[in-house]
């Protein structure tokens, strides 16, 4: 590092001193990972970041390549759909570090009256767009690529959603979530729980991230379908697609057949061996369970699929 001009800065959060290049304005403390202003030595009130949009991704191309491999999807769909909607949303998500310690007192039949320390420490994310997108993002594991310090230029591309919750409201939500987890853990740890007293509570706002999400709509044979694609990684988070009549009928036939086969097997067994009731019960239960997923799929014209759920 001999060629670089450096100076020593002191982290405003943990007090550690370390060298940074003179040209750096925002630096990350290597000890506590706080991002701060290297000149003013202050932690930004609210760290604001964004995930960069993939430059090479064509969300529709990706969507069609994913949908085309679904069961009972029309073969001509990739060629004969029309684009209804292609909107980019920047969705706000808060991140918190929560660390709550409680003292629980209760009774155990084995050990008598006891006190025990219960702790809950974790990072919590709260999608805060105030729209239906929050629900979908709540379950979605945000992927790899690194986040960048917020750049106002992104607001010119796509719809920039301001957080519907402010930092304090989000913090209250996190507090509720974590304390209810502590209470649950406490009640599980005793035969009879007498009391839970929170003795230490630290909930820190670690910043706001804007995440790029494509909301897509397409039309096929006069009907419209929706899809959501991750703008940074191209993963299909949610999609709707039509099922062919042939596909649906074959699923219904399969469902019916599996119940019929269950009954037929049972009747044959009772004719040869006896035990008719038990055999019929077994055949109906397993035949029904085998038919169930096919029956529910055949009953819907629009099927749903998501790429990240395949990981589970």
């Amino acid at each position, binding site marked *: 590092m001999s060629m*670089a001009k450096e100076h020593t800065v002191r982290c405003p959060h943990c007090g550690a001193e370390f060298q940074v*290049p003179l040209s750096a304005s925002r*630096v990350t403390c290597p000890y506590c990972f706080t991002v701060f202003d290297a000149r003013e030595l202050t932690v930004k009130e609210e760290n604001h970041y964004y995930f960069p949009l993939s430059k090479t991704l064509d969300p529709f191309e990706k969507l069609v*390549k994913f949908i085309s491999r679904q069961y009972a999807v029309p073969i001509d769909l990739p060629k004969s759909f029309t684009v209804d909607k292609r909107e980019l949303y920047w969705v706000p998500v808060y*991140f918190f570090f929560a660390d709550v310690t409680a003292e629980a007192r209760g009774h155990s039949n084995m050990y008598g009256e006891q006190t025990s320390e219960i702790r809950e420490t974790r990072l919590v994310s709260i999608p805060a767009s105030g729209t239906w997108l929050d629900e979908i993002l709540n379950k979605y594991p945000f992927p790899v690529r690194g986040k960048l310090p917020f750049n106002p230029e992104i607001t010119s591309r796509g719809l920039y959603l301001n957080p519907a919750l402010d930092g304090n409201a989000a913090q209250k939500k996190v507090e509720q979530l974590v304390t209810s987890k502590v209470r649950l853990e406490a009640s599980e740890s005793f035969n009879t729980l007498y009391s839970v007293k929170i003795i230490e509570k630290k909930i820190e706002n670690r910043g706001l991230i804007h995440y790029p999400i494509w909301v897509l709509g397409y039309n096929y044979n006069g009907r419209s379908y929706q899809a959501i694609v991750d703008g940074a990684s191209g993963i299909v988070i949610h999609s709707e697609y039509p099922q062919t009549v042939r596909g649906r009928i074959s699923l219904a036939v*399969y469902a019916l057949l*599996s119940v019929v086969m269950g009954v037929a*097997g049972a009747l044959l067994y009772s004719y040869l061996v006896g035990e008719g009731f038990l055999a019929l019960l077994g055949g109906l239960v397993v035949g029904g369970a085998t038919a169930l997923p096919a029956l529910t799929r055949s009953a819907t014209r629009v099927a749903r699929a998501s790429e990240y759920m395949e990981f*589970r």
Partner: protein
Amino acid sequence: MESLSCKRCGAPLSVDPESLIAVCDYCGYPNIIGGDFSSEHVSIIPSKTREVVENKFIEVVKKDPQLSKIEDIEVLEISGAYFPAWYTTIRANVRASWYTTVIEERNNRVITRRVLQHEERTISRKIFLPARRRIPSEPVLNALASYTVKKAESISPTREDFDWEKIKLEFLGVEIGRQEALRILTDKFIDSLREEYKSRGEQLDFFSASIVKVEEPVLLYVPVWTISYTAHDSVYLAVFDGYDLTCLYRSEPLTSLERIAGFSLGLALSSLSGPIFAATASLTGFETSLLFLGLLATAGYTITKSAMASARVENA
């Protein structure tokens, strides 16, 4: 404008303030940025190169009975990255008691009895935590988890005589610091112990764990490669561990023949399960045969689901 330069070759470095490690564009050396950051507890699992990973994928395709029959397989994108995770060994003293139900026969009568069991012991375990805010996808998580048991030759980022030129992988930023990681790891450890004791019986009577010792955590960078490929104009994924080339996850096209095979299996199972249930009931008793029935029903449900799925998924 002044800038940092690579410690090994002196070339200028482009530095992302979020990252702890900046990879030199020219020689691939991972420079720890941020001055005197201690490299003592940072380790890197060496990765195979992009070409080797791609060759491994081609080999997997050739060996796979289904994939080898598809002619239009094309690799769309290969991307690799170093995922940071904290690893430590924690030891705790556990005191727990729980209820179980015991069924026994007394004077020709079957009775059930609730029994209070207890255990006091010291448990030590190696655990890990991804050093990023959001949990990565399941295959990546499995790759990170495997290094709690896997013996891998990790290298220190201060080693300049390593073949860094060949790797040049992006080091994903560390978002969970050492102190926070220790707190979260301890909590995770105690929570998993509580769950284990909970599952030993019907109800916990008492559970308490106190931490005796926590080892200095190590920040390990694990290389994971993702290959997206197309077959019959549809897109699929394969995930590899960059160190030993284990295929952690693979989605593959399901042919219509395979779907038909799945559906036939479902029908065969339906027709056989009545007789199986009746036969086990008369041989082993009604209660055991109910367990059998549950298993058969789950199998039937799963067979139909996977026959309708959009891809066949194979996990390591």
